[in-house]
Structures are given as C-alpha cells and as structure tokens.
C-alpha cells in the first residue's frame, strides 16, 4: 500500500581483484560502498529509506547479507559460510526509498563505487549499466507451465 511512495530499484555489482582476498576484507569493502551510498541518500532530508538490502554471493552457498533501514551507521551485515579467499563477488542491491528516482539512486551508487576504487586500487567494481529486466517468473522451470497463473504471464 506504500508502493507509490517507496520506489524499489535493483542493482547488480561485480567486485573483483587480481588476487584472492579474504571474505572479511570483501565484507568490509562492500560495507564501505553501501556506507557512502546511504550517506548520500540521507543528505536529502525528504528522502526516507524504506529498506536497503544487499546480498553478496561468494559461491552457491556462502553469502554476506546487508540490511539498513535508517542511516549509514546502522548497516547490519551477516556472513553465512566458511572463511575463504576469493577474487570476485557478485552483489545484488535492492533499494527501497522515497523521493529518489532509479537514475538518481544509480548515480549515487556509481559515485560510491568510484570512491572505493580510488581508495583501494586492488579492487575493481563493475556496476551493471543495463536496467534490470526483472525476474518475471514465478517458481517454475523454463518450459514448464506455471502452476500459479497457468501461463498467463504478460511478458
């Protein structure tokens, strides 16, 4: 019922480095990007953060989940998996905020990524340039008829 007030936007980011880094270091660096991103969002008093979530996928089972509902000092993160060194991590950010457009949000995120790259030359960050096409499916495999809406997807 607040869908018109809080606009959901999704970003995919690829973090990579030439040599494998510890999960703890990735956790901290991704936190830094989110910190700067959220700081910028909060600079405008009109904006309200509904919920900003991020999932850093280390492999098929291991992940770091981030969650924030207010300011950048209150970003919670939780690591699930085994400690290891990896050279790349994909991160999905699902950002729900008011008074900020998708383009505006993307601009702030791009700035935050650039700020981290400047501060840590080991790390490369690629923010997907295309807009998300979405996951316009329910819970069925490709080719199977959808048990939910009987194949009446409008896409």
């Amino acid at each position, binding site marked *: *019922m607040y869908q018109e007030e*809080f606009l959901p936007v999704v970003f995919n980011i690829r973090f990579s480095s030439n040599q494998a880094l510890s999960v703890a270091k990735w956790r901290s660096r991704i936190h830094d990007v989110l910190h700067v991103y959220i700081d910028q969002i909060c600079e405008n008093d009109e904006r*309200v953060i509904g919920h900003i979530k991020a999932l850093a996928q280390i492999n098929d089972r291991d*992940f770091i*989940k981030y969650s924030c509902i207010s300011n950048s000092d209150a970003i919670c993160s939780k690591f699930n998996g085994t400690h290891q060194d990896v050279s790349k991590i994909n991160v999905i950010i699902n950002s729900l905020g008011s008074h900020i457009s998708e383009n505006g949000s993307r601009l702030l995120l791009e700035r935050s990524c650039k700020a981290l790259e400047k501060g840590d030359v080991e790390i490369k960050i690629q923010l997907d340039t295309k807009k998300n096409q979405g996951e316009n499916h329910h819970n069925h495999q490709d080719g199977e008829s959808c048990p939910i*809406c009987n194949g009446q997807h409008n896409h």
Partner: protein
Amino acid sequence: MCNENAITEKKKPPIILFTGFLGSGKTTMLLKTIEMLATTGKKCAIIINEIGEVGIDNRQMRMLGYDVLDLFGGCVCCTMKVTLEATINHLLEEYEDLDYVLFEPSGMANPSSMIPAITNCGYQEEEIQNVFIFDPTRIAFYQNRINQLFNDSINLAKYVVINKIDQVSATEIETAQKMVELAKPGLITLEMNINKELSQEFQQLF
C-alpha cells in the same frame, strides 16, 4: 448420515503469516521459525512476496537450502490476491504432508488485502497465525507515516513481536507496548531480539 464434505476435506496445514513494515525483521523471524520447526521434524512450505524486480530474501533462503515459492509484486499478469490464492491451492494440492505454510508478504503490503485470498483457500480467519513484527527503532515513523498500516496490521494480528529490544531504551519498548494496547487491547505481545533467538513464549506457540 455422513457429511461428504467433511470426509473429503483434507487437513490443512496452519498458515503462519509474518507481517510488519520494511526492515522490521520478518525474514529473520521466518528463518528462525523454520529452524525451530525443523528441529521437531516439521515440514514447512515458504511463500515470499518481495518488492523489487530481483529478490534478495528468496536467494538467501535458497542458498541456505530451502525451496521457496516467490510472489513477485511486479508480475503484471496476476494481481497479488489471485497469485497468492493460486500458490496456496497449489501447495495444498501438491504437498499433502505439510505441517505449516510460512508466508512473508512484502513490508509494504496491507495484511487486510491478503486475508481474502487465504480464506478463499478454505481457511477460517482465526486459523491464520498472523504474527506482526514491530520495529521499535521506528516508533515515530509508525506514528506519523504509516499509522494506517500499523492499525490495520495490529487489528489482524494474533501475536505481536516487538523486535530489536537490544537497540532501544526501556521507554521505547514501553511506548511500543502502549501503541499495541491502544490499537487492540489484550493482544499477546512478546519482546525479543530476533537476531539472537526466539523467546521461549514464542516457541511455545507452535
């Protein structure tokens, strides 16, 4: 004389509905509840409705090894109500040995819009175990911005969990309790830090 409907009617698994505004702790609560129910061998189905074109919570749950049924609010082919109803019916038809259906709607959805979809599947309103998760770090926000959602949610809730008690003062917890009591006197209210553990009182509910 036998009632044929009574004979053919299958026992339906209870639905536990986790409601609450964005970021209140619904996903964590759902995960902790699954862990709790799994320790006693209960078989649960999970339905998630997440706002946004790409889900985070559903991915997290799949990475933890759970099968999840997604309801994407952005899917224009079905309204939320029809999709939810079809999903529940699908579960009831395909999985006869389910002990519970756990449903986490989006934090922006008004629970009152979901109840008809559930009752259309043969459930009575009183059979829906609606747990409202209240974030006391956002009391002013609840009072000033989402008061209607708060009141609607409390009115339909069977239990209220005041979460994040480690992050607020005793006064804020008391204010949260008073808000609940004012909206629906006598409602069962539990205080806990879901991130740490589910309270004993909550564990005894299911």
